[in-house]
């Protein structure tokens, strides 16, 4: 990882070496949450059942803590993978799946267990 990403690299480096296949997705998602989305209280959570790490934090000017699991567009993920991701964050109702692409585009999908009625 390059020198101008010096803010995130020390925090992420143990996870980047532990999960080299998803190192790119982890790095891009963390940078997006920290710098572009401006999340506060951003913590890294190890998710060995999904062979990656996830993130928890708060959006600017909100109180609720949200959970994010990064993945890459090239990966194929299953319902059981999503279920274990949901279970790994113990006290959350839903998680956000961050899908990263090679051009640094990120799309976030909100995943909830069961059927959820749309808000409006």
């Amino acid at each position, binding site marked *: 990882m390059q020198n101008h990403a010096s803010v995130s690299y020390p925090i992420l480096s143990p996870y980047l070496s532990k999960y080299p296949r998803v190192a*790119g997705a982890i790095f891009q998602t963390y940078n997006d949450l920290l710098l572009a989305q401006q999340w506060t209280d951003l913590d890294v959570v190890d998710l060995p059942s999904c062979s990656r790490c996830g993130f928890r934090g708060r959006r600017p000017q909100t109180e609720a803590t949200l959970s994010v699991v990064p993945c890459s567009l090239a990966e194929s993920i299953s319902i059981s993978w999503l279920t274990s991701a949901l279970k790994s964050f113990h006290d959350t109702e839903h998680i956000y799946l961050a899908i990263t692409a090679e051009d640094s585009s990120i799309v976030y999908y909100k995943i909830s267990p069961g059927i959820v009625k749309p808000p*409006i």
Partner: protein
Amino acid sequence: MSMITSSNRQSGQRKGGFRRNENNRIYANPLPLIFSPIEHTRIWPSHILLGILGFSSSRIANPHCEGIFDAATRSVWVSNAEDSMTLWRRGFFGKGNLSRSEPSWLARRINARKIAENGLTAEEVTAKRRAERKQFKLDRAQAIAEAAAAAELAFSEGRIITTEETGIVIPSAATWKPHSSTAPKPTVPPPLADDNIEEEEDIPENMEHLQLTLQEAFFLLWTMDCLSVLDPNTNTAMSVQQIWIAFQAAHFPPHLPIDTASILSAHRFDNPFLINYAVYHHYRSLGWVVKNGIKFCADYMLYKRGPVFHHAEFAVVVCPVYEDPSDQESSPFDLQNASPFAWSWLSTINRVNSQVQKTLILTYVTIPARSRIPASLLSTPACLRQYSVREVTIRRFIPARMRD
């Protein structure tokens, strides 16, 4: 054009013809190389003489941009702000890694500090529009609930009334106006010499870089020689040969050594880099601007001139086809859309793109057989000649409506 704007400029100037002319001026060059004709001599114009002999007399201005290869994110990072702007403005190459398209992160941070209410970047304009639309939906839902409650009340009294008779107006998108902001109106501080010095010290470090995909980077350096890629470990420029091998190795599992021998011994023509590069090069050489299509359920979007001019007309889905089916069974890559797809998948993608007025293109790339082509071809881009690229356009046919 700076995205950091002061607040008192006429906002009307930002619309319509002004914006169009500005864009035509800024994005005038479709490629990073600029061709400029040499000045004519008086007696016998040299350009005519050269033209007869078949040579071009234009001078080529090459920006010579520089980027660093990052294997984990499978991309090339351009950190130099001037190179980033050059590559974006001349051909829309790359994407700011903290922005929606053009690298605008620093401008947004500075704008946030300057409390500039009129100078908004693209992301801020979209955020404002989305917030207003959300408020409109809340108002509409509330009005509908009130109308329903009033109707219930009337029904319980024994009358049946219509929506108009309840007297409650349900807002529509055309007539709804955003409420006046409840936040305190931001004031613009009068400019003082001291303030300017403070602001310069306050400018945050630019944490953003322009991210080029491996396909974009290779296209720039191979066809136009306007990009040099540095090795992240040694900070020295890599040769085209090394880059070609490294870009292929980026898709293999991380433990594979990055050298020609291991790439040749793996002997894989279905490397996602090769397939995607065949598609990227195909459309770029035909003049399309090719960008990522993740937001529209597709692999690539094709723009006629660029994202700032008009929405993309086409969405491309890459469907790799194996010449030899046994190659697919032995593949170490998880290639998407390489197997026959279900009608529901096709229908979903077509619907998504029809909603946003885009035409779906299925691009079939034929992967040559390992049994027919020797591995040695993989050491240079010459192997690309073995791939064929064909397109099929998909549009939904509705017999009842399409009578002509």
